């Protein structure tokens, strides 16, 4: 079946850029996630990992930027993957498809907001003692 004119008009280049984003974020995530895993487990050490040490690490704003991008790429890469899967498996159920995609989108935006809020508003180490 030829896609309806509305479907074509609404998609435009969206699918192209979603596809491109998937490739680029995949490569970036490979580097960032492997680095993060290696650093936390072998350089930093899991046994030292706790609230205070992570708080202290965030004294360096570069770590906040790194964590923010790791979170953003992981969430949106995962979201786009789920969107594609839902498109396939709910292709015959347009109502459920819109509902499922909306729910996942709201969840991703919610997680991104909470994560971003924590990363950028976490008090600097000087005030750590005040944090319970």
């Amino acid at each position, binding site marked *: *079946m*030829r*896609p309806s004119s509305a479907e*074509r008009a609404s*998609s435009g*280049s969206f699918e*192209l850029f979603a*596809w*491109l984003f998937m490739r680029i974020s995949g490569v970036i995530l490979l580097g960032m996630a492997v680095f993060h895993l290696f650093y936390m487990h072998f350089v930093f050490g899991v046994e030292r990992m706790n609230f205070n040490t992570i708080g202290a690490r965030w004294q360096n704003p570069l770590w906040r930027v790194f964590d923010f991008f790791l979170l953003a790429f992981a969430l949106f890469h995962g979201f786009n993957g789920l969107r594609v899967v839902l498109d396939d498996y709910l292709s015959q159920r347009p109502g459920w498809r819109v509902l499922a995609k909306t729910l996942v989108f709201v969840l991703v935006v919610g997680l991104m907001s909470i994560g971003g809020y924590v990363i950028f508003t976490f008090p600097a180490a000087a005030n750590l003692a005040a944090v319970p």
Partner: protein
Amino acid sequence: MKAHFKIKRFNPEKDREPHWEEYELEVEPTERVLDALQTIKWEQDGTLTLRRSCAHGICGSDAMVINGKNRLACKTLIKDLGSHITVEPLRGLPVIKDLIIDFTDFFAKYRSIKPYFINDEPPPDVERRQSPRQRARFDDTTKCILCGICTTACPVFWADSRYLGPAAIVQAHRFLFDSRDQGAEERLPVLSAHGGVWKCRTVFNCTDACPQGIDVTGAIAEVKKLLLFRKL
């Protein structure tokens, strides 16, 4: 040798669901699956329904699932399968009867990419010239016989029938990369839309199954690249 055939049958006037029926017959190992199916139809069960036309691998009518893989019955030798052979209709399109599936949706998608030469310039006195190199650019996709084996082997097409499918994209490739053709502006919006090339997940089932040996996944990738670099 003795061959044992298990065939998925469906008669829309009698059956609610498809069911298996089994047949035994004497065959030569060098015979093709199509020969055996015709023997069954002619000598054992005249109600067995299948499509075939040229019977020499060029018309693409007798595509079916043989021992789990999409193949042309006329290009598959019994000696390559052994004595136990299962035959089913292609997957992903509605079955009309037995091994015959409804290709309406397949050909609607084929037509949507405008599978014909588009060039508004008046024809020159001689033919529209093309170098051997320009001709070679799209040679692979000219081999398509529209049997539907690639599209019905694609898991994305099974899941989401809005996908154009590999066969339509192969046909688009044949014209998009033809130096004489000017129809890209009309074809590319269809290929870039929701059901277009971006649904391809490079599973390679199409390339694996193509009886003409076309690099189907490669052709789809070239159309993706074309769309991408036009945008960037």
